[in-house]
């Protein structure tokens, strides 16, 4: 596995066991008491060592169940109801095996009672015997509160968590009077974020405070990492949907509402959502207008990308510059 930076201490062990660099700051947040709990998916073959690591740091782990990942295109009734999760569920520990696609869904907390409370509402949509098993929507609210997310953001999420009908990020941007970098959640699938929740606005005071506290805890652990996060968040982004966003590196505001950029880097959730990397690579200047992304190269229009409902996700492209 290639690492994006030289990790140290707990963060290094987490990356090696989880085989993933995302969510690291949320472990720091749990350790620092900024959030009450988190949930994560641990490769089954590393699960024992993960439990030992958590115990060494005084963290409690509760097991939900075993996930066996499905291919993206796997045909199953109801998969449109869970755009982000594609897995078959099995009882723990019966479903454990060494397959790379087998993971354990866990709750991690600094307190046993918080871990159990989170586990109660922590069910994720998975297929069991060919049926998608989902929880009622109210459980999403209880889970957000159990995690320790700001209540305003939990309520906002509950009102918007319907990918074919709502674009949560576009609505959060609409609700913002300023785009604060501390509330920038577009890098949530990368290591460069202090938050994992969707803010109710990009200047939500509770979210800004949450991020500042997490970053302070990260700084204590690894000051360079904290600097890198701050720098990463203060950039131009092309946001299309929750699953599809791009960092525009070397970006600057240009003429007629355009933004010039050197490179567009996909920072969405999963590769199949990435529709525009190829087109964005053809240009160095873009503008978003009425749902269309116009791309220029050297002043010449090279692409106009229509957006709509793709893979069951509503696209609402916006250029966001976080300050």
């Amino acid at each position, binding site marked *: 596995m290639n690492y994006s930076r030289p990790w140290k201490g707990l963060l290094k062990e987490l990356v090696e066991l989880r085989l993933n660099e995302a969510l690291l700051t949320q472990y720091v947040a749990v350790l620092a008491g900024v959030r009450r709990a988190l949930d994560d998916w641990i490769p089954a073959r590393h699960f024992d060592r993960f439990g030992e690591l958590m115990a060494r740091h005084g963290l409690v782990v509760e*097991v939900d169940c075993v996930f066996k990942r499905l291919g993206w295109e796997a045909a199953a009734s*109801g998969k449109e109801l869970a755009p982000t999760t594609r897995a078959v*569920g099995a009882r723990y520990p019966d479903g454990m095996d060494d397959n790379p696609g087998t993971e354990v869904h866990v709750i991690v907390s600094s307190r046993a009672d918080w871990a159990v409370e989170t586990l*109660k509402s922590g069910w994720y949509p998975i297929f069991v015997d060919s049926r998608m098993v989902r929880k009622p929507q109210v459980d999403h609210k209880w889970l957000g509160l159990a995690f320790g997310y700001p209540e305003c953001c939990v309520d906002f999420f509950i009102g918007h968590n319907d990918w074919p009908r709502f674009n949560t990020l576009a609505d959060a941007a609409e609700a913002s009077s300023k785009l604060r970098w501390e509330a920038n959640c577009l890098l949530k699938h990368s290591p460069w974020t202090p938050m994992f929740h969707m803010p109710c606005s990009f200047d939500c005071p509770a979210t800004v405070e949450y991020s500042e506290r997490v970053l302070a805890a990260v700084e204590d652990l690894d000051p360079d990492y904290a600097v890198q996060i701050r720098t990463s968040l203060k950039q131009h982004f092309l946001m299309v949907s929750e699953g599809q966003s791009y960092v525009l590196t070397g970006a600057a505001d240009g003429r007629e509402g355009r933004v010039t950029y050197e490179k567009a880097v996909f920072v969405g959730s999963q590769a199949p959502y990435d529709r525009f990397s190829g087109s964005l690579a053809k240009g160095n200047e873009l503008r978003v207008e009425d*749902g*269309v992304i116009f791309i220029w190269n050297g002043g010449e229009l090279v692409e*106009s990308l229509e957006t709509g409902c793709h893979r069951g996700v509503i696209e609402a492209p916006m250029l966001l510059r976080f300050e």
Partner: protein
Amino acid sequence: VWTPEFTGESNDAPAMSRLDSFQSALERATGLLNAEQEQLVASVCRFITVTSADTGWIAGLVKFSAPSAQPTPDALVESAQRDLVRRLLKITPVRFDSMPPNTDGDFRETLVTLCARRATAGLFGKELSAADENLWQTVEPHVLGSKYGARFLSQLGEEVSPPPSTLASDETATYTAETAIQTAETATRTAVGAAQGSEAEDAALPTVVLRKTRMASDTPVDWHAPDSLLHLPPTELVRIYEGAVVNWAESESSAYRAAVISYLLGKFEESRKYLLKCLEFDGDVEEYRHLLAFSLRHLGRFAGFEQIIFGRAQQASDVAELPGEATPVRRSTGVA
């Protein structure tokens, strides 16, 4: 908004000249729309283009065929309706396993056209043509008999009789309109909404009807009831709850209503009690079993949850005999 770039005609003088004439016609057509028609077009259409190219469907893009395009109010609204129908087809996993009789070619395209024309006729207060009306008589029962077909028609604003949620969902079952009505008459309709309040009070509350999902099917359970009632203020929930608990032991709908509201209020021991009663009324309802499972989970009885979800406890009696005590909490391996 016209996007000449879309058709590659930005440097084509005749095309740009045709564009001027098209723009004028479009403005005239738009000006003739009433408020409802205009709202529909504005909410659906983001771009209008004239092209002969077969570029496939793009949500929000209304296309008129070049070069003779002359948008009329009816054509504009029908185009918007087509887009809307296609969007609904996109997000509703409706399956058409066979072609209805007397329809040729692509059934989905036929359906898009027909639904768009029906909706447009409705918006203009006109009758559907006799040919289209005849076709609809064939198409409607076929859609209703398809999986998620009733939901699709309901989302389109069609009056679906019976309501889609009263249909028992069975992977192998297909319903014609006649059998669907028969099903509604014979099945227990479990109204969850405001059955006990006065008419005036009820008007403000959602009426929620349970679609029973059978164990033999593989469709996801219908959480329409708890999800809809979630947004009611607690005082309203309590009012509905108080109406339901009066006769929960005698009425399946009252028992389910009490169970759903208990769950939303976080009273999981009560929701467990009411759901066990629901399962006595009808043991083959996944909504009852799953809500019971999640109630047990909130009570800390994880073994009971797993027995229902992973073990698929088959009978109401199996569920009733689930372990009564909270399961000891499981720690991960390695944690002392």
